[in-house]
């Protein structure tokens, strides 16, 4: 197996050294850094809005652009967190604790350079984990049958609902709504038209990429207008000088960055637990392990920045483990990546490791290279990226709305999907105000076909008996975990 993996890696390396792919990676990273540096512009939103640019590209080429944006945005979220105490992306929230105090001491440049190095370490470790662990998981998943896949889909939904918002019930409702939306169109098993009302555009189902663009692009933009489009204008005047980090700083952060990289990869692999949760966990672990440090955590400790940044970047590769091996997205971005692959009729899951191993390893090697690009450009351009925070948001949002519209239209060349996107945007905006997380809805959209087909197939095999789920140890364990994910917080809530 190792020989096969190494062989695939060498093929992947040959593919990603193609000048077009390299150029798209660099472009993606720069775009990601640009968007991640502007507070409120998340990696998810950027990818949702720009997904349509990859429809006509080869799957591997398109993925390089999207992964470049992903890695670049997660890394760059730390820049405004350090400079203006506002995370560029939710993943960088924990970076504020020590990054901002460093900035106040006039050490913003040092903090950004160390954040760049730690992001590289965390991201690199996570992609290595993806590269070498995921084939083992996929190999095991090849033995899964309908009951196991249904159980996994159920688990994916319950866990994302439980970790992605303040309310489990609202998270579950959001996920189930996504599932309900996904039932529109032709029934996969009988061919019956469900909820299509003789509208031709609904026959093929509701285009989930249009829904995602609406949820992450339009809803986010509307929220920005409700919040006040002029409220987030920032002015950065602190000059970031120097390019190379000092050796003593690298020595100081290396151990905690490596450990945080492993933890972040593990956390990222849990569906729903994205970079924000990963960085809080790794930061918290750093404060537990490294006692009696000077300065103490929260007062400008460079290792605090490193722990948070390594953790959140490590979640990127981690999130792709369940995405590629099981077809269950680890977070909203990986849900979008699944969408991007499905446009090219590539369906993530264990079979992908047999049928499309060339594509997969091109993606893995490319993602490793993306972190090298982030390291180089992050260090070289620190001063320039810091200036990006000054870009006024009121220029950006009308342009983003146009990109959302053209992205939805590009799905099928009709305005219908733009209407779907707008409706999803309106719904997402209202739901966010009422405290409903949107990530479970996206997961519901992706998981519904897996859950439905495998549930009905399982019950068909067993003649309608639920025994089929009890007799499979894996399915039973996963279903019990799903029940516990919902029941434990519910019981705790009743007790409180």
């Amino acid at each position, binding site marked *: 197996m190792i020989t096969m993996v190494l062989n695939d890696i060498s093929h992947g390396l040959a593919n990603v050294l193609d000048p077009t792919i390299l150029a798209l990676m660099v472009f993606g990273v720069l775009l990601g850094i640009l968007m991640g540096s502007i507070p409120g512009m998340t990696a998810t939103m950027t990818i949702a809005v720009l997904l349509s640019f990859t429809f006509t590209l080869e799957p591997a080429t398109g993925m390089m652009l999207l992964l470049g944006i992903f890695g670049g945005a997660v890394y760059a979220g730390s820049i405004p967190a350090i400079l203006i105490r506002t995370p560029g992306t939710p993943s960088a929230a924990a970076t504020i604790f020590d990054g901002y105090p460093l900035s106040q001491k006039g050490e913003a440049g040092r903090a950004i350079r160390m954040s760049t190095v730690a992001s590289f370490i965390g991201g690199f470790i996570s992609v290595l984990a993806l590269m070498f662990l995921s084939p083992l998981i996929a190999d095991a998943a090849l033995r899964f049958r309908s009951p196991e896949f249904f159980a996994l889909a159920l688990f994916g939904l319950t866990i994302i609902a439980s970790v992605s918002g303040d309310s489990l019930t609202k998270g579950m409702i959001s996920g189930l709504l996504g599932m309900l939306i996904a039932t529109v169109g032709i029934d996969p098993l009988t061919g019956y038209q*469900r909820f299509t009302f003789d509208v031709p555009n609904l026959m093929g189902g509701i285009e989930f990429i249009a829904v995602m663009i609406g949820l992450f692009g339009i809803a986010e933009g509307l929220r920005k207008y409700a919040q006040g489009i002029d409220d987030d204008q920032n002015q950065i005047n602190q000059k970031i000088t120097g390019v190379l980090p000092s050796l003593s700083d690298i020595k100081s952060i290396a151990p905690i960055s490596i450990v945080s990289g492993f933890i972040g990869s593990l956390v990222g692999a849990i569906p729903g637990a994205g970079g924000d949760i990963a960085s809080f966990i790794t930061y918290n672990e750093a404060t537990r392990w490294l006692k009696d440090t000077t300065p103490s955590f929260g007062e400008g400790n460079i290792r605090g920045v490193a722990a948070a940044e390594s953790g959140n970047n490590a979640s990127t590769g981690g999130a792709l483990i369940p995405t590629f091996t099981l077809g269950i997205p680890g977070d909203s971005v990986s849900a979008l990546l699944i969408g991007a692959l499905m446009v090219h009729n590539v369906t993530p899951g264990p079979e992908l490791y047999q049928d499309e191993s060339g594509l997969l390893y091109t993606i893995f090697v490319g993602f490793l290279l993306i972190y090298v690009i982030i390291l180089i450009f992050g260090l070289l351009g620190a001063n320039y990226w810091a200036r990006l925070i000054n870009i006024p948001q009121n220029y950006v949002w009308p342009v983003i709305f146009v990109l959302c519209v053209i992205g939805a239209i590009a799905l099928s060349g009709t305005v219908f999907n733009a209407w779907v996107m707008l409706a999803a945007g309106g719904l997402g905006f209202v739901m966010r105000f009422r*405290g409903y997380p949107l990530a479970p809805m996206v997961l519901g959209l992706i998981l519904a076909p897996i859950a439905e087909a495998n549930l009905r197939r399982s019950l068909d095999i067993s003649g309608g008996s639920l025994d089929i789920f009890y007799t499979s140890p894996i399915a039973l364990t996963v279903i019990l975990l799903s029940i516990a994910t919902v029941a434990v917080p519910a019981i705790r809530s009743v007790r409180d």
Partner: protein
Amino acid sequence: MALTKLKSNPLSVIFILVSVVVIAYATRFPDGGELGPGFFPILVSAAIIVFAVADIVVDDDTELEISDFSMVPAAVMFGFLTAYLLLMPYTGFLVGTMLFLPVGLYYSNIRSKLMITVISIGLPIVLFYIFSDLFMVRLPEAIIPVSRLLPPLPL
């Protein structure tokens, strides 16, 4: 008390009503209620009802503080987007976007006439070339096909 909880969770109430309608509709599918096409939508709708009722009963305070936000700008922008899409079959993507952008930018407090003009004319043209000529995506055309006046890319 119960009425207050219902009032404070209007979306949960709406989701329950939608689910009831879905269940009623899906039971009319062939073999609805067994393992036919109605089985899964009914199952999901029933689960929504269970969690929505639980949400109303728990009534946790997770919504955003409404006083921190002004709904008017969001509603106005949503209105602009709706008008943009409504007009698109007549204006096409190119002209429609050239009309939407100045309105959107002006409403976003951009007052530089030069910037508004450059963005409103430049962006739609760039996007039109990228999607129409490079990606071969058929973008909505106006009643009077203005986009045909643009010279093709020398590809």
